[in-house]
């Protein structure tokens, strides 16, 4: 009975990790909760299909993360996303003013993330939210370690410019 086994193991994984995937997706989408949910659903659906192979290899966590990031980058390539979209509420942040380094609002952090190109945003989320090292990040993004380092450098420069020069990064630096 392979299917029930697959389903039971998948169910356990979803119960344990769905919340983390959703938080990751929320940052990748810079606070777009609906798109974040869509991306997580896409990632989990693909994960279920690939489950036997995934569970034998690197494990479901890294694979789901990789699918999630790929789905996000694919989504940003869609033409309709390059246009303005209606939102349920007006943003409550100033678009160009630097925010206080003492207590940057969540919306300000999401706002700065939204200004980063998709791959830079993904690098920041993978390295500094999930604390992945350069090697794991390069695997998740399917790019070279050098690309990860340069993307990280560009993204951090932008974050420091907008959130304050005293921004520290003790995680994800290896």
């Amino acid at each position, binding site marked *: 009975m392979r299917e029930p086994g697959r389903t039971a193991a998948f169910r356990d994984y979803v119960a344990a990790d769905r919340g983390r995937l959703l938080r990751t997706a929320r940052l990748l989408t810079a606070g777009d909760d609906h798109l974040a949910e869509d991306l997580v659903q896409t990632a989990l659906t693909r994960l279920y299909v690939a489950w036997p192979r995934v569970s034998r290899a690197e494990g479901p966590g890294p694979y789901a993360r990789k699918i999630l990031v790929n789905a996000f980058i694919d989504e940003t390539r869609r033409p309709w996303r390059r246009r303005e979209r209606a939102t349920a509420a007006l943003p409550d942040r100033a678009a160009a003013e630097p925010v206080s380094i003492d207590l940057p609002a969540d919306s300000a952090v999401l706002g700065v993330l939204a200004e980063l190109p998709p791959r830079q945003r993904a690098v920041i989320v993978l390295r500094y939210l999930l604390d992945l090292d350069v090697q794991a990040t390069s695997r998740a993004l399917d790019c070279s370690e050098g690309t990860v380092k340069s993307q990280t450098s560009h993204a951090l420069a932008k974050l420091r410019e907008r*959130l304050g020069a005293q921004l520290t990064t003790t995680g994800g630096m290896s």
Partner: protein
Amino acid sequence: MTELHDLLERAAGPHVTPDARDIANDVARGVRALRRRRTGAAGGMLAAAVAAAAIPVAVGGGWPSASGGPVAPGGSGAKSPSAVANSGPLTAEQKKKQAAAGQVAAEDAAKAAAEKVALAAASHSWRADGAPVPIHTYAGPALAGSYQPSLMPEETVVQGGNAYRLTIARADDRDKNPDSFVGKIVVMLSGRAPVDTPRVVESDSFSRIVVVPLSVPIDGATMFEVQYAPGLAWTDDEAIKFASSIEVLPTAKSAKG
């Protein structure tokens, strides 16, 4: 000093534990995708086989000439470039392209067909006359698991029960997997917003959901829910009548992480 990790942790929002329905829906989407993929792969292989069978005929018999007789591949006679391309033996690359084109078309058709089947299972009436599926008293032995109905829809079977869910399906449902919920009836604990009385809280073309408050919380849940296929054609009252007949035992578990 501001630590980036802390900022991101906070901006990512609270950690939301998935409820049973989130998980059930994730499983259902995965099962549907897997089924589509398998159906598509089977269709693709069939198309490739058909294409492969057609190639020797075209190559061996050649293409008809203007006089009606076959022109041997590579035979003499003035031909346009396109005629040359069409009449000569197919290269390995051409064969591959033909097979691939056939496979893509077959996969698309198979995917569409599988989606239709899934939709039909979920939304089409279970009865030929479109009437609601009658509910009768269940007087059989206690079911496995933590959900014990005293009513049961006619012509249905219990596919499986445990602490997390009870799955009921049409007797002739070809999908025998109790963890596949499309087009079936599933009972499980619910993490939805509390209600005072049983009611239908959601309805779309795939499923309808009745939530029923529990007299005492079980495994952190204050309600259970019955997700059922619209094909049962039940009114809200009928759905609530069936749902309210279910006793949830204290051994029930909520599918939370």
